[in-house]
C-alpha cells in the first residue's frame, strides 16, 4: 500500500518534548499514537512530500540537515512537487473552498502548504493520507482516504512494548 503522511507524524514519533503537566501527558499520547502508526506502516511505501521534509528541517542545525535528509530518504519516498501534483493542488485549492466553515483553514498559507503536501502524496499514488490535523484530513478526504493516527493496536502488548522502547 502507498500512504502519505504529514511532518507532524514524524515530529510526534521522533521527539521527546520537555513539556510538563497535562501538556506532557497529551504529547506522550500523541507520541505513542505516531509510533503505533509507523509500526503499522513498516511494510508499506510511505510518501513524505519534500515540502514536509523542509518543515522537519527548520529547527535542525545546519551541519546535521544533510544527515537527516539522507536518513529520511532511506525510509520514506521524499517526493518533490512535480507536474501532476501542480494540477492536483490547483483542483484541491478550488474544492477546499467548498468545505464546511469549521473545516476550512483561516490562514491561506497553512492551507497552501496542506494542499501541496496532499497533492504530492496523491500524485505519488497514495490511497490513504495520515494527519492529526482534522482540517488537513478534510482536504485530503477530497481525493483519498484520510485518517488520524491510530488510538490503539490489535496487538494488546504493542503499546507497552513501544513505551518501553522494545518495539
Amino acid at each position, binding site marked *: 500500500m502507498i500512504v502519505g503522511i504529514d511532518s507532524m507524524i514524524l*515530529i510526534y*514519533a*521522533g*521527539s521527546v518534548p520537555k513539556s510538563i503537566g497535562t501538556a506532557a501527558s497529551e504529547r506522550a499520547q500523541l507520541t505513542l499514537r505516531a509510533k503505533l502508526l509507523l509500526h503499522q506502516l*513498516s511494510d508499506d511505501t510511505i510518501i513524505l512530500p519534500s515540502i514536509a521534509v523542509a518543515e522537519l528541517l527548520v529547527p535542525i542545525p545546519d551541519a546535521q540537515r544533510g544527515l537527516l535528509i539522507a536518513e529520511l530518504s532511506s*525510509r520514506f519516498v521524499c517526493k518533490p512537487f512535480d*507536474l501532476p501534483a501542480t494540477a492536483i493542488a490547483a483542483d484541491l485549492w478550488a474544492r477546499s473552498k467548498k468545505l464546511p466553515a469549521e473545516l476550512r483553514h483561516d490562514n491561506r*498559507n497553512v492551507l497552501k*502548504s496542506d494542499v501541496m503536501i496532499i497533492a504530492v502524496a496523491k500524485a505519488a*499514488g497514495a490511497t490513504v493520507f495520515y494527519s492529526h490535523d482534522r482540517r488537513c484530513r478534510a482536504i485530503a478526504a477530497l481525493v483519498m482516504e484520510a485518517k488520524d493516527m491510530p488510538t490503539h493496536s490489535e496487538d494488546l502488548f504493542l503499546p507497552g512494548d513501544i513505551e518501553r522502547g522494545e518495539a
Partner: protein
Amino acid sequence: MAKKTAKTKRPEPTLEVRFVAPGLAPEKIPLRAVSDVLAAVQDLASGRDPFETPHVPPEKSIGLVDVRRGSAIYRCVARAPEEALSNLGRIGSLLMSENGYGDDGDKLAAALGSIHDLSAVAKQVGCRLEVAIAGVRKEPLVVIQAEDYQRLSKRLLLAGETTVTGEVERVGGVTGLRCALRVPGRHRILYCDVKDRSLARRLGEHLYEDIVALGEAKWIYRSWRIYKFTINDFNQPRIGDSASAIENLRRAGLSAWDQIRNPEGYIREFRS
C-alpha cells in the same frame, strides 16, 4: 490531348504467402495477424538476424503487388463497421482541430501510439496516409502526415522529473534497455526505458521487489497518465523496524524537535 504519363511496370510477384485451412475467409483474419505474418516472412526471406539487425534493410524488403496503383489502396472489412467508422471519424476530426481538444484530448492521447506508427510510416514511405469510407474517394475520415505525431505530442504531452513506485517485473531487451514496472492503481504494466546497462543490471537484482524509480516522465495532459518514463536511478525506502528507524532519525537530527515546546505552532509560524 494531355500526354499520358509513363506507367511504372508492375513487378512480377516473387512469392505468395498463404493462410491455408478449409473454408478460410480472408476477411475474418485480423489485420494484425496478416501484418505479423508478412513481417515474419519478410524477416525469413531477408535472412535478418533480429539480434544483429533491428529492421529489414529497404533493399531486401518485401512489398505487396496486385494492389491498385497510383496510391496504394487496401480495402478492409470491419466486423463492427459503425463503431469503426465513428472512432476513425472522431480521431480524424480531432487531428484537424485547431483550437485544442477539450475533454477529447484523452481519446486522442490513447490513439497516440498508433498515430506515432502511422506518422513514422508516412515519413518512411514519403506519403500521407488516408483512411476513407470504402468507395468514397473524397473527404477521407483520417489523414495522417509525417509530422502529425510531433505536432500532437507537443500539445498533448508534458515532460518533467518525477518518482514512480512499482514492482520490477522484467528487465532487459534486445533493441533497447527496458524495465517493466507494475504500478499500483495502473491497470497495465508500465514499460520504462532504462538509462544505461549498469542500472539495468542493478534493477535485475531486484526482480519482483518494490522500488521507487527516479527519472523523467512524459504525462498525457489532463489525465496525467504516464505515457513514457525513463528510469535514471532507483531506491527502496522502507521504515523497517520502526523503533530503530525512529532512533536513527533522532540521531540524524530529529531530536532537535525536543526543544520545541509547541511544534504545531512552530510549523504554523514557518508556513505563514
